[in-house]
């Protein structure tokens, strides 16, 4: 069976390493694509079908909301979650307004599992 594909976009190496650790330890049926910013992500997902995307908000260049909108244009319906330290209510509402989820940093295994479960709904 083909593996599912997840995308993590974060300019922090630590944040990417944490997500990589969770995926390599227990989520073997998933492939993880890692990107350090929006441009890197758009390049790496070209021609790929994603099942889940975890996107930081504050990144150099394009922010996470704008990137999420671009990905949704290409793949409507994909489960996207903004993973951010910016936990203000308005940020959560902004994510909600474009139909994506919101995960408060720090990321954890439980939060990723919840996002995956939402993806399968």
């Amino acid at each position, binding site marked *: 069976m083909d593996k599912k594909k997840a995308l993590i976009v974060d300019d*922090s*190496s*630590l*944040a990417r*390493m*944490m997500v*990589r*650790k969770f995926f390599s330890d227990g989520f073997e049926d998933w492939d993880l694509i890692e990107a350090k910013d929006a441009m890197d992500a758009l390049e790496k997902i070209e021609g790929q079908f994603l099942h889940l995307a975890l996107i930081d908000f*504050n990144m*150099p260049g394009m922010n996470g909301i704008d990137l999420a909108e671009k990905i949704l244009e290409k793949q409507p319906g994909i489960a996207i979650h903004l993973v*951010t*330290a*910016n*936990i*203000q*209510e*308005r*940020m959560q509402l902004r994510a909600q307004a474009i139909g994506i989820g919101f995960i408060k*940093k*720090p990321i954890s295994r439980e939060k990723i599992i919840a996002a995956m479960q939402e993806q399968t709904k």
Partner: protein
Amino acid sequence: MSREREGMFRLSELEEDALKEFFNMGLGMAANSLSQMVNNEVLLTLPKLKVVPYEEATRMLVANQDEKLVAVRQNFKGELTGTALLIFPGSESLELVRTLLNEEIPLEVLTELEQETLLDVGNVILNAFLKSFTQMMHVEFEFESAEFLKGSSRFLLDITSHLAAQNHSLMEYADADADERAFVLMMDFKTSDENNTNHTLSGFVVLLFSQQAMLILRRELEVILSNL
């Protein structure tokens, strides 16, 4: 400064990235608290992080600011012991107070309320900022009450004054030179509210760690990174 001492300030790229991410979370929590106080969204900018010895930290602040500064000082004690300072240029602090009180207030009244309001703000921001350390690190510490300070950057970073405020550690540091203390300096704390983009608040968060606290910080970073 000895080579060994210099090494304490030199973080690897990954350690620096990790520390920056912790600060980012702290900044997020701080901005969230601030946004609730101003009842508006506070926009974050990516923090610039520098880990530098005392002398360099002072030089950086002096180079950036000629005018009088205001600061809120918050000492913390425990496994991590040190001083956190939230510093604003004097003119911007009044602007922040005006935003917080959300009405047209005469300057003289504003000045009277400055100290009280900034203490509240500083307390909220610095507590949120420091608590971010406890999210991923196994360190415990307690906060002391916040104090309001006003003066030049050199005055605000005066190590003697901070150590005197941390009375229990005075003896511990009595023989140490100023350059023997580790400093983590984060600059460019910028906020602006959504409806009035001209209102931008620039400030600094300066964390002054004891050498021992710096060693604990590095140890915790190593533990976290080795588990990834």
